[in-house]
């Protein structure tokens, strides 16, 4: 039996809400699903906004599949202003009062605006923007067009995404970060240093260990004053100082709220008729802020709500941070491992000049953390091993250097003299070296005769060089004594 009645309202049409809306109809039967999205847009992929900043795709290029048909009603541009859990209704910005049997909060998060002189968080100056929504992107792009220099405040993942996007447009980008190294939540200092060097090569300069102290935004530019007294001028300032879960509705509805809306393994809030997923939800003390867990939550909730699997439970998996763009290839997962721990096996490789760095931490044959930056051929394997908790290879080098040697392309052509008689030269016709030698002994002295006598090379033909090599070797040693030897 389904846990809910037929009317499901989803508040929020971002990555989590849109995913749930897409998952539900396929499973829901006759449920009536209403999605209320505050943003005035179709469902879009927030992950791709940095590509939009970079000018690699247009707005249509970031649109996601939208749930449609099957009694689903998507209403963009509609805010929910109040929830009445007792009456099971929501009030919208249009003044509608909508009843629900089950309500899902997918309200996401809001970009933080730091409390700096010169910034009004409710009304940012034209040349200052946060970087979270499609509208934010439009704001940034409207200023970035014709701009030469941009500042990004905050050197976390999102700030660096924005920075490299703007750098791709040809802007001179400066990132101001108050901590000693970039992405300190995911990286160790050495990786942070390699990353800073890589970014410098892409036109992004990092200013580390320095805070911002004031903003002066004018019609023709913006100046950021730093705590060391420096002043950085630019055409544009992007604030990337973190995201806070949007919990206002939940709080005013009387739901249990900590940093996020507190949910259990079934994504249920303190009200059994209300669930929460995505960036606004807090599960087991964690607010994730990432897409993979939000989508997993959407999948689990869809199973629970439709009764497809009422026992479905959300089990958080360790998350992987990935920054991949032209010139940058960064994967970070698990504990960055800042201290040495005798119980932890460490692997590392560093080639800072070429921008390559890898550090892996292994406990009991399982990866507990990894940082990989630059050209690491095994990065896909490392991510999967970490994600699935699978045992690491016995030969640890393959994690740093890629596939083990015997999987690299075709085996080198061996010297005919050293090749054992039992070596298969022609795979298609199972012709071993011994058979070629016997054929030669029996009188074959040309390729045509060898081929006719053994069928070597007559399948795919790729062993032709090897057979010619053996013929050459046999001809070269064709003296009475050695011929005896070969024949023996």
């Amino acid at each position, binding site marked *: 039996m389904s846990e809910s009645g037929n009317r499901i309202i989803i508040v929020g049409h971002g990555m989590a809400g849109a995913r749930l809306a897409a998952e539900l109809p396929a499973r829901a039967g006759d449920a009536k699903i209403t999605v209320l999205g505050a943003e005035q847009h179709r469902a879009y992929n927030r992950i791709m906004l940095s590509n939009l900043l970079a000018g690699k795709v247009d707005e249509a290029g970031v649109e*996601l*599949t939208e749930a449609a048909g099957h009694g689903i009603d998507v209403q963009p541009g509609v805010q929910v202003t109040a929830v009445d859990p007792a009456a099971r209704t929501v009030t919208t910005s249009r003044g509608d009062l909508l009843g629900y049997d089950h309500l899902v909060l997918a309200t996401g998060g809001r970009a933080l605006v730091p409390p700096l002189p010169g910034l009004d968080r409710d009304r940012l100056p034209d040349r200052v923007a946060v970087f979270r929504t499609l509208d934010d992107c439009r704001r940034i792009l409207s200023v970035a067009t014709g701009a030469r220099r941009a500042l990004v405040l905050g050197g976390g993942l999102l700030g660096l995404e924005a920075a490299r996007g703007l750098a791709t447009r040809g802007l001179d980008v400066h990132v101001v970060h108050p901590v000693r190294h970039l992405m300190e939540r995911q990286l160790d200092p050495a990786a942070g240093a390699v990353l800073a060097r890589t970014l410098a090569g892409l036109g992004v300069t990092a200013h580390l260990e320095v805070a911002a102290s004031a903003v002066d935004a004018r019609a023709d530019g913006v100046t950021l004053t730093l705590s060391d007294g420096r002043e950085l001028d630019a055409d544009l300032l992007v604030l990337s100082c973190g995201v806070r879960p949007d919990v206002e509705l939940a709080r005013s509805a009387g739901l249990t709220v900590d940093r996020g809306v507190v949910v259990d393994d079934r994504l249920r809030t303190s009200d059994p008729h209300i669930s929460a997923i995505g960036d606004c939800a807090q599960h087991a003390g964690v607010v994730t802020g990432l*897409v993979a867990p939000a989508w997993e939550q959407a999948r689990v909730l869809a199973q629970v709500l439709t009764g497809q699997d009422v026992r479905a439970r959300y089990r958080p998996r360790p998350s992987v941070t990935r920054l*991949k763009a032209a010139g940058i290839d960064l994967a970070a997962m698990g504990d960055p491992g800042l201290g040495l721990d005798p119980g932890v096996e460490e692997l590392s490789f560093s080639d800072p000049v070429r921008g390559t760095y890898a550090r892996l931490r292994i406990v009991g044959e399982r990866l507990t953390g990894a940082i990989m930056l630059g050209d690491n051929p095994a*990065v896909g394997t490392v991510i999967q091993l970490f994600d699935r908790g*699978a045992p690491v290879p016995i030969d640890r080098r393959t994690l740093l250097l890629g596939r083990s040697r015997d999987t690299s392309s*075709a085996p080198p052509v061996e010297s005919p003299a050293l090749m054992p008689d039992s070596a298969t030269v022609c795979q298609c016709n199972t012709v071993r070296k011994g058979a070629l030698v016997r054929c030669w002994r029996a009188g074959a002295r040309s390729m045509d005769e060898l081929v006719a006598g053994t069928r070597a090379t*007559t399948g*795919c033909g790729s062993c032709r060089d090897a057979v010619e090599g053996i013929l050459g070797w046999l001809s070269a040693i064709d003296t009475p004594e050695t011929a005896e030897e070969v024949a023996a």
Partner: protein
Amino acid sequence: MTDGAQAATHSGDVSQEVATHCPYCALQCGMTLRRTADRVEVLPRQFPTNRGGLCQKGWTAAELLDHPDRLTTPLVRDRPGAELRPASWPEALDRVVSGIRRIQAEHGRDAVAVFGGGGLTNEKAYTLGKFARVALGTRNIDYNGRFCMSSAAAAGIRAFGIDRGLPFPLADLGTADTLLLVGANVAETMPPLVRYLIEQRERGGTLIVIDPRATATARQATLHLQPTPGTDLAVANALLHIALAEGWVDKHYVDARTSGFEQVRRVAASYWPARVEQLSGVPVADLEAAARALGTAGRTIILTARGAEQHAKGVDTVTAFINLALALGLPGRPGSGYGCLTGQGNGQGGREHGQKADQLPGYRRIDDPAARAHVAGVWGVRPEELPGPGISAYELLTALGTPDGPKALLVFGSNPVVSAPRANRVESRLRDLDLLVVADFVRSETAAIADVVLPTAQWAEEDGTMTNLEGRVLRRRALRPPPPGVRTDLAVLAELADRLGTGSDVEPAGGGSTARVGSAGTGTGPRFPADPRVVFEELRRASAGGVADYAGISWERIDAEDGVFWPCPTEDGAGTARLFADGFPTPDGRARFLPVEHRAAAEEVCPDYPVYLTTGRVLAQYQSGAQTRRIAPLHRAAPGAFLELHPDLAARLGVLDGDEVLVTSRRGEMRAPARLTGTIRPDTVFAPFHWAGQARINSVTSDALDPVSRMPEFKVCAVRVEKA
């Protein structure tokens, strides 16, 4: 016994040498057969596909002709539990016919089923479908091609309106700038095709292979993507995602020649490379390199094979690669395109002419009234007399002997005891039949449990046509008559129809019953001719106007033109070597994009079954191995099954190279020696499916079916491996 095949081709009774094609895979390599004093000799022949190449299977194909295991007399089992014993043809056929009559009288016409094969000639596949619908009046016919080509076929039809494996000549592969092979191990399954890969490489082309194993083919690639089994679809969507982001999509082509792109574009937006990297294990950098090679080359070809197709999401996986091909503007562009590599010898023709449950000749649908009217007209029956669609191969096999299922099965050209998924279940269903009839030339594992075995001719003893992987119709030519006691499949079907009383033609506007007594060969000629040339002439009429239109193809034209590509509707018009140059055979002439999403394999790994199993082939064996296991040089080259596993996995299991291991799934188990190799992922094991008994990996494989094609998920299931 008269054999039409001989009469049709030769003025004398035998010839000393004929130009024909290999009996095995869909490459249908050209070969010459020559009679010497004591044997039949095989010589490679220059033909536009194999260019004079042959693999070991082809070279040794004639060794089965006079093999001691060759069946030369019918066999009959007197009662369950008794041994098969030799019998005369009249006795064996009486047993078949009386069994069919009794079962149909008691349980209805659908209680007798037919199972065909993708190795049968066009003439035989066509006749088998007609025999089921007209002589038996049963809807229950399907064939082993369901396990082979059905996913690619369904995806091709829904995207292009047509399913021809390669819509361009094979030679195009050699000139491709970028060639992508998805789940295709051609270096083992069709070695002479590798000549085109070598040509492609020598011209500076890029070869990309997607395969969970570093196969002999993957090792020749410029770039090998080695995904977790069951994640190809996500990889394809990621490649499209990158192509969109990088501006490699051919917008003009998409606008002018396709429909449905917007929806697919939005689906692709949710397959950003890092997400797919985590799903598949393929590094983002490799996904990007592959997308670049595909998106920026001049001539680009994308090919899928069983690795991508034999999944419970096989149709959607193929669709994902077709979407990619369409977005890049490949289909119909000279030198570019999408295609699938057909497997069995007549895997193409065998899926066109009516041995499929839902199909009539010419690739017509059996539920289409116009198709029924046309074919009924050719067959001399009323459209309403034709049965409707039957059920698919695995569903048919698992219904056998059940209260509501068929009670009798006639098998031609297939060995499902070895080749079907969840084969232990299929075997027990076959054993529960009241009557199992197998036509074969050796005692296959399926023949061994039959009630009646009918010895049939081999390829060198019959004439007919085969349609190769390019859609090129070829001539198979007889070198010699079948040995005494052996009949052709067509002769067997003709004789059975005759004995069932449906062998002669009905008069136009005849009475209410199609069953009439009378001997063949009078008046308008037999309804079920044994002469393949006569059958082909009828097939031409039956296929006329269909998607796979053979109306303009004659044996003479095939001889004169090195084969003729279908569709070929008229005798004076050329065949169609390249499809889609001007449009697609869809209602609006546009190819269709269809949004497809990744989904997990039907059975994912878990603590009890922690390892993925995937299955496939080895070079020296073919299909169920019934033929190739009996050929000494092939047996020496590949003497038995094995389980391929990574040294890391083996070390954790305490297994050494050569140790006997036990592979267990929720369905069954298999034993074979371990073969350790670094070419496989540590989370995956591989076994070839050519062997029977304890070494039968299909005892273990999954019977989850694709919702559209009903293709079983041979290529991924969850297993436990332990030292036996």
